[in-house]
């Protein structure tokens, strides 16, 4: 009896421990989301403690842009976990074999085998910031926003996915274990500022080459009720379709070059 009880306790502890491993990861990942947000807001706070407007944009307007941009980014982070180690896990270690043996699109399998649940925090915080900043700016929500927000958020996520899937696919050609997602990911922040502050070359880069601005600044102006960039707001879904198509094309071409491991 005592023996069974102790085995039961051991099993229970094992179970709790296994859950805790996940819990610790979840807590750390969530903290990282909050940390990133705190840093961004602190940065804006420090800047605006010295100035009134940035090229004509107020702090609340910038917070609204930041808030909106977190929603598509959160959606993307939710499913992009496997892209970061794709080269290492799938190409170098040869796990892509398994993916190719199954009757489902490989991209689907790679994306949806793991979720980064902590990214949900990002989506929620983004919505909160959007509402808070909107209220402070005296912008009243409209019925159309309920349609526009999901459309632009999903489009934005698709733009991120298109960009990073394309970059990930380059690993089929270059044998880099590291991949190049991380340094490019760090450039997303620049899309959260009004594009008007940049030199035309930087603006073109963020709009037409790595179109991060279409997942952050441009669509966010729709909720600022600014008409200056209306054309770009409507181009957002178009850019999303194009960047996803490019990504799928590059990926499928890359797939043909997959060499697996060994002979």
């Amino acid at each position, binding site marked *: 009896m005592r023996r069974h009880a102790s085995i039961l306790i051991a099993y229970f502890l094992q179970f709790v421990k296994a859950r805790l491993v996940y819990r*610790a990861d979840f807590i750390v990942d969530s903290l*990282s989301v909050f940390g990133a947000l705190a*840093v961004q807001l602190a940065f804006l706070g420090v800047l605006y403690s010295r100035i009134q407007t940035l090229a004509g944009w107020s702090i609340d307007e910038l917070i609204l842009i930041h808030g909106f941009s977190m929603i598509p980014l959160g959606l993307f982070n939710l499913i992009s976990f496997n892209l970061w180690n794709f080269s290492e896990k799938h190409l170098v270690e040869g796990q892509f074999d398994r993916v190719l043996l199954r009757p489902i699109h490989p991209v689907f399998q790679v994306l949806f085998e793991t979720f980064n649940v902590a990214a949900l925090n990002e989506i929620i915080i983004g919505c909160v910031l959007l509402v808070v900043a909107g209220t402070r700016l005296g912008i009243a929500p409209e019925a159309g926003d309920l349609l526009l927000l999901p459309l632009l958020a999903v489009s934005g996520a698709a733009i991120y996915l298109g960009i990073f899937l394309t970059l990930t696919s380059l690993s089929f050609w270059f044998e880099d274990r590291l991949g190049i997602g991380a340094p490019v990911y*760090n450039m997303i922040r620049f899309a959260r500022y009004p594009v008007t502050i940049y030199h035309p070359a*930087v603006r073109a880069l963020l709009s037409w080459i790595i179109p991060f601005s279409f997942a952050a600044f441009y669509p966010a102006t729709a909720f600022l009720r600014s008409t200056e960039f209306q054309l770009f707001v409507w181009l957002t879904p178009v850019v999303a379709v194009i960047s996803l198509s490019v990504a799928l094309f590059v990926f499928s071409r890359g797939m043909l070059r997959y060499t697996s491991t060994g002979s």
Partner: protein
Amino acid sequence: MTGTLTLYLEFTRITFIKMLAYRLRYYTGIVTYLVFVAGNAFLFRAIYSGLPEGTVIGGFNEAAVVTYIAVAWIGRSLTFNNVDRELATQVTGGNIAQNLLKPIDIQAMTFFGALGEALFRFVLFTVPISIVIVPLFHVGAPDAFSGLAAALSFFLAFLINTAINFIVGTFALHLKSIMGLVRAKHVVMELLTGALIPLSFFPDSWRQVVEMLPFASITYVPVTIWMGMRQGEALVQALLVQVFWAVALYGLGVALWRHAIRRTTVQGG
């Protein structure tokens, strides 16, 4: 003794060669540094453009802050490394067990490896991006003494940054994936090291706290030395603080690593 040193220098050499294999990452790295300096420089130009001509914030006028940003990111191209992620890969991939069996000191191995990465970064990142950035953003040369002191300061910054990364890497023994942690470290450190904005821009009460943290020694201190903003006693004091942080964080890394290893071994595999 020389035998041991040669052994560890071998890690330096191997890392140097290993870094060269990441061709694609290398090209992107160059581009990202340029984009980062350009992006941040434009941000500050936009800030100053809204202010009266000749405004000075926290000791910086418009030209000075652009120089600060340029030097900060050039310096970062040298001091940065991925020790945390590599350590985590070793732990999750099980290679750490093999390394633990070898008669080598993991921490020394990591540091000498990082040195190889720093050498690589100096030759293939720092020098080429300087050639582009220095004329493009009109970065002036420092006086010889400040330049020399800054070189020492950047080296100490490298040691401090590596020690912090090592500490973050030890968390891999407790987590399934340290990706989130590494990301958090990146964003927090960018702000607190002064890579995004000179620490003197912070409101006074914040600034006093932030300048006391070890992160300030990674970017803010060496860059301000380079710009000749610290002279005489203030310069010596800043360097001594850096030495203190390098030693203290290295020691903390040793302690945390030992603790974590003991815990894992006791728990069994």
